[in-house]
């Protein structure tokens, strides 16, 4: 089956265990059950003309035509009468026999008793398997033998069927074409018939050789059965073991018996072979319990039932390539690794915590020393940023009658920085007595605005509602900024922290002296955005600047946001007219204002902290270089 070369005497393949020789039907009846069952099953499945109607077996064309017009036997031989009784079930080859019988008298009148006997026996024997049989009926080979003996007995009676049969048996099994030609008129005897007439009766050895159906059967009767043109289902029987290796009709060697891949894949692998083996009779165990107690060679149920084995249904031999196998192994490995508990990473927190605490201590001390002791003190910057002059001039040029809109767009966390940075700017605006309105696009912005302007309101005598108003929270993000730039009065409906008398009298923030003349954004003398976020400054530059005409947009930034906003300031068509960022610029602004503020108050702490931070950075860099150097030079 698998193609593995085996020894000539081997009954089974050493590789796949497939049987190499046919079962010996001459053995016990149990051995013959398998092929008998198969023959019976096929016979039952083969539709007969009388049962299936349209269904036809192999050679059904000839059979069908013969059945429609059955040949009426002219001779009343016993064989002919027997074949008539089962005419509806006869196979093709038998039908040809009958036709031959019907035509024989016209060909030759010579009796051939032994041939007729054989034909009758075959007809009777072969017909029987076609019919459903009871389980107690003898097997087909027995029926064949019985039929042959019965026909011999009948041939001894006077007027037997031999009178109507005059030719050897081999003549009766000529091909269908020859049979038809045999039915030609008598005066035109076919060539083969003439040759046969001239020949002596052939011996059995000269008969056309057909592999015997029953292996090991020595009687000639069985051997001749193969010469009778057995139907296909009988021809499927494998050759005998002593028969030479099968050859194709054209003489080429047949491929060794192989199973298709799909069938090979389904074949159970070592399913029962290692478990149930036929042992020598002496070694076979004697059943001790149950109805089979005392019998040896009984199949043990325990190995079959209890022993684990490969399932015959699910045992599939997968055709796995090396790559697929490697991928499967990789997947298996991944799954295994997922199931494994990863070892706990040892904490390196001790050393890191020490470093962290040390750095924090250094920075805290650096910040606290100037605050607590007033030293060290750093000299105030003598240089000021170039853009500071432009901003200062810008504020100075704002018309006194136009209010300034200051947007406080930062979170409370940045108040400490931005209040110090924007202090000088607000101080200059309020020092000039300009009207001012505050607003924020963040909910916490209005409160921060109140806190940021509070010191300057007191210093410059600003009055809420008269000199300064708070528009409050502008909700809606960039869309609201654009809306406010187009129509401020529709964007902000109600002010924030208006004096109680104004609220009670129903005066809107737009009706206050600060914003009474403001209808559009360009009515403000300047818009200043104080923010720690570059995004907020960019939104105001993109959405509000186009509606400000020639009025400047100023941004006061946290030091971290300055690099991203400076391009808006340094462009040829600047979107930002002034920029103020960082504590040094704020200190310079205060110096230019001539009034000390929060920037100068925190200058020393800021300077000390920056110095400490720089030292820490240098120490870290030196430590890194040291580690790198030690890594390259372990000695």
């Amino acid at each position, binding site marked *: 089956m698998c193609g593995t070369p085996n020894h000539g005497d081997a009954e089974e393949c050493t590789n796949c265990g497939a049987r190499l020789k046919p079962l010996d039907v001459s053995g016990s009846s149990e051995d013959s059950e398998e092929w008998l069952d198969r023959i019976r099953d096929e016979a039952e499945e083969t539709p007969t003309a009388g049962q299936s109607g349209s269904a036809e077996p192999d050679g059904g064309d000839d059979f069908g035509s013969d059945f429609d017009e059955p040949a009426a036997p002219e001779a009343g031989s016993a064989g002919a009468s027997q074949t008539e009784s089962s005419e509806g079930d006869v196979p093709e080859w038998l039908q040809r026999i009958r036709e031959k019988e019907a035509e024989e008298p016209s060909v030759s009148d010579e009796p051939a008793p032994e041939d007729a006997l054989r034909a009758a026996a075959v007809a009777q024997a072969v017909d029987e398997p076609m019919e459903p049989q009871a389980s107690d009926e003898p097997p087909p080979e027995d029926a064949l033998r019985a039929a042959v003996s019965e026909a011999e007995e009948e041939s001894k009676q006077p007027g037997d069927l031999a009178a109507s049969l005059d030719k050897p048996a081999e003549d009766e099994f000529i091909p269908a074409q020859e049979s038809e030609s045999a039915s030609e008129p008598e005066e035109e005897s076919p060539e083969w018939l003439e040759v046969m007439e001239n020949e002596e009766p052939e011996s059995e050895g000269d008969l056309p050789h057909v592999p015997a159906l029953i292996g090991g059967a020595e009687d000639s009767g069985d051997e001749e059965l193969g010469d009778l043109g057995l139907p296909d289902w009988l021809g499927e029987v494998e050759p005998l073991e002593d028969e030479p290796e099968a050859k194709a009709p054209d003489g080429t060697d047949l491929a060794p018996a192989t199973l298709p891949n799909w069938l090979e894949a389904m074949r159970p692998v070592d399913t029962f072979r290692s478990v149930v083996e036929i042992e020598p009779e002496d070694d076979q165990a004697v059943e001790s319990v149950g109805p089979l107690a005392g019998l040896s060679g009984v199949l043990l149920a325990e190995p079959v039932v209890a022993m684990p084995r490969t399932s015959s249904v699910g045992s599939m031999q997968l055709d796995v390539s090396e790559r697929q196998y490697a991928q499967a192994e990789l997947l298996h490995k991944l799954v295994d690794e997922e199931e494994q508990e990863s070892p706990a990473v040892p904490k390196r927190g001790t050393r890191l915590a020490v470093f962290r605490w040390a750095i924090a201590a250094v920075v805290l001390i650096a910040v606290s020393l100037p605050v607590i002791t007033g030293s060290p003190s750093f000299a105030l910057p003598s240089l000021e940023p170039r853009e500071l002059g432009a901003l200062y001039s810008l504020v100075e040029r704002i018309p006194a009658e136009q209010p300034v809109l200051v947007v406080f767009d930062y979170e409370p966390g940045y108040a400490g920085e931005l209040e110090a940075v924007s202090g000088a700017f607000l101080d200059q605006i309020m020092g000039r007595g300009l009207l001012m309105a505050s607003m924020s696009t963040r909910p916490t912005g209005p409160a921060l605005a109140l806190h940021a302007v509070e010191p300057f309101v007191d210093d410059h005598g600003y009055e809420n509602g008269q000199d300064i108003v708070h528009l409050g929270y502008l909700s809606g993000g960039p869309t609201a900024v654009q809306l406010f730039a187009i129509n401020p009065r529709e964007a902000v409906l109600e002010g924030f922290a208006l004096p109680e008398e104004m609220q009670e009298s129903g005066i809107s923030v737009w009706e206050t002296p600060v914003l009474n003349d403001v209808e559009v954004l360009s009515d403000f003398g300047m818009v200043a955005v104080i923010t720690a976020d570059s995004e907020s400054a960019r939104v105001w*530059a993109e959405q509000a600047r186009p509606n400000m005409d020639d009025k400047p947009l100023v941004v006061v930034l946290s030091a*971290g946001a300055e690099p991203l906003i400076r391009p808006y300031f340094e462009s040829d068509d600047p979107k930002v007219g002034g920029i103020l960022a960082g504590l040094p610029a704020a200190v310079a602004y205060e110096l230019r204002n001539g009034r000390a503020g929060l920037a100068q108050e925190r200058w020393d702490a800021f300077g000390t902290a920056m110095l400490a931070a720089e030292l820490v950075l240098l120490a870290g860099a030196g430590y890194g270089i040291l580690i790198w150097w030690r890594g390259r030079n372990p000695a």
Partner: protein
Amino acid sequence: MDTADLIASFVASVLTIMVLSYLIGDNPLFKIAMHLLIGVAAGYVGAVAVHNVLIPGLIEPILDAISDTGFAGLLDPELIVSVIVPLVLVILLFLKVAPATARYGTVSMVLLVGVSAAVIVGGAITGTLVPLTLDSMDSLNPSVVNQLTGESGIERMLNVIIVLVGTLTTLFYFRFTVRKTDVETPFAIVGGVKVPGPLTVFKGVGKGFIAVTFGVMYAGAVAATLIVLAERVQFIWDTLTGMIDSIG
């Protein structure tokens, strides 16, 4: 400093110290301060939204219209456009709270997102992309003077060249750079030393500009943080001295 301010300053100082306690790791004091900060901020934002946005924008106009002309005033086209429709959209958006009714708020979300996207993209193109792109292609004429900074001559030309090279190499690094796995053929090999090709040079220069930019931003963030820390330390010291003075 009056008592109320003193108490407020003391509470603020304690909260500041609780936040700074994160230095020793995550601890209950830090968590309490964070939860308190978040809760207060959320409550404050909610109050501001109600008092500064919802009441003056939605509630008061409807009440005023009803009080002036009765319920017929709600049929005023101007009121419908400016108040009723927004109110319906707000209600629909509020339905997003429940999963079963969330789909009804999609209309409001679509309007919100669509309008915001249009405004932001339009502003970015006209306010940032086009102007700054044009600014990166400035004239190299030494006689030109920058109106704001007053730069001129060699200084301005140098700045313009730096801007041009920085812009091109940064764009080159981000968009036109070779993949990391691709090794550019060296421009030349001099004495066994490979001279990198132009692509590698541009990529390296662009990376340098980006590194400098992020370095400046980081330095600014550190400076801002130190200013805030100095302000907090100053605040705590002032509170302590104020409390000591008030006790004394």
